[in-house]
């Protein structure tokens, strides 16, 4: 009988311990760290001075083509371009291609989170205007 009581006490103690642990885990889970508060920088062109100046395509100038092209670049943690994509076309292939060709030759500063470089997409708009 004594041994049964001892056993029951041990079981209850174990139950109590596991409940406390579960509560502690729950408390840890509910402690949410807001991500917007991290020290973070976006990927960007290292310096626009290093980018070749895009030339207005002659055929586009001749045909008075104007427009805005949005380019998406995925910049790796090493600052190199991993992927490029025309997110929104100007409506003119020559203008899209000229903007893309020019920006592809730029150098990039990778994005960072808490001081460590990370891969990140960046968006750049080129406005082609003859005015």
């Amino acid at each position, binding site marked *: 009988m004594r041994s049964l009581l001892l056993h029951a006490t041990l079981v209850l103690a174990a139950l109590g311990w596991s409940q406390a642990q579960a509560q502690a885990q729950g408390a840890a889970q509910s402690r*949410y760290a*807001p991500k*917007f508060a991290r020290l973070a920088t976006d990927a960007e062109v290292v310096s626009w001075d290093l980018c070749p100046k895009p030339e207005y395509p002659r055929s586009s100038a001749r045909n008075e083509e104007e427009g805005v092209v949005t380019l998406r670049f995925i910049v790796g943690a090493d600052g190199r371009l991993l992927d490029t994509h025309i997110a929104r076309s100007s409506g003119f292939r020559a203008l899209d291609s000229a903007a893309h060709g020019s920006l592809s030759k730029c*150098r990039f500063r990778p994005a960072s989170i808490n001081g460590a470089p*990370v891969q990140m997409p960046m968006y750049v708009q080129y406005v082609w205007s003859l005015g």
Partner: protein
Amino acid sequence: MKRIVLSLLLATASASALAAPVDCSARPRVDPAALTRAEAALEKAKAQPGTHGLALAEALADMAGARSRYVGKTPVPKDSSTALDLIARAQAIWAAAPGDAELATRLWKRGRRDLLDQHCPLALAELQSALAIADRSGAAAGPLALSIARDLAGAAAALGDDPTLNAAAPRLLAALEGDTAPLAQDRLDAYLAVAGYYYRTQENARAEQALRRLLDKARLANPEDAALQRRLHYELASVLYAQLRYKEAESLIAPLARPGGGGPADYEAHKRLETDMAARVRGGDLAGATTLGREALAHYASERERVDAALAEALAAEQAAVAANRHAELPAAKTRVAQAREELNVLVTRIADIQGNLGEVLHARGQLDEALDLYEKALGGYRSPDATHLHAVNRVRAAMGILYRTRGDYTRALALQQQVQAALLPYLGKAHPDVVEVESEVAALKLTMQQPDKPAPARPAKRRK
């Protein structure tokens, strides 16, 4: 000896000729007479071939130059040789010529002239031949060969010709170490071409070596040229980034950073607000961050009323102009509508930013109902969840997933986290902390649910009202 002196003099004289960066955007120059002259010279050379056919080669090169410059009214017959065919024939003759500093110098001058005329493909062929002949003369590391190699590198870089740069780069990198001459534009172009080539081919140690040497030279020889040093610092920083030496790169360019705040005042104010909220959270002042967030939302709510009214007014003016056939007023009315719509879009995105941020702060404070409400409002405010707002939208979704997990709603949490995982992975890659975190969330949720292989629904179920 006389030839060497001649070459050196020419090297000095021609160094100043290329004062601007190489430009290969060929602009036709009208010189119809050049074609006639070149044709006559070619006929003469064919009739009287000189030693090794060199006269013929130069006549062919002249013809190539004239052909590429020709913008006469009479088109060149289609079946006639192109400038590139002609220069290739000349190159074949020069390839068989023995080493000769005088010939190398002549071809070098020809190449430089074509560079100045922006006929880069011709210049490239001539400079390649000049360098080969200079090398065969036994002075591969001599000043003539190095001068030619520098121009060749500049032309190759302007044309994007990496095979040529691959051949010239090691020689120029070695030469850069001992080069004590001032950093004139053509020298700078050549050495930057070498560094750029090594960067592109991911030979970062060599790119760094070239740029550090150039920086030393620039500090010594061009100490007043701040723009040059700035450029070299940026180039070097990009090479350091490429080697994942992020902190070194950042410290290199930090002194060069221009003061921010160049954007519109309302944009800068929004950025400042987000920065202040984040700083308070990092400092543990969640209550302060909450106050800032609530004040901002109140301010934006009144802005929203103003912008909505402006849009309604602009739309009414446009409709009135249409109804009254006042066509002259229509373009201005349409512009006002477009501007009001754009202003509204920007404002809605800013409100979504603050809703997401405040939601996260309240989430951290355990005020989950209000946090969830703000998350849902934020998601409704982002207009391009698959493009420019991809990261912001998925930050909010991931936070919602964590909130649902806290509440024990694992199914909804898993669906959200899987959605975030699918959206972020292609853009951020496996190593990104957000992707690592969401993958770990998904794994933990599957484990919790004891259904590791059960496919999750493609979209999260809607929240019950």
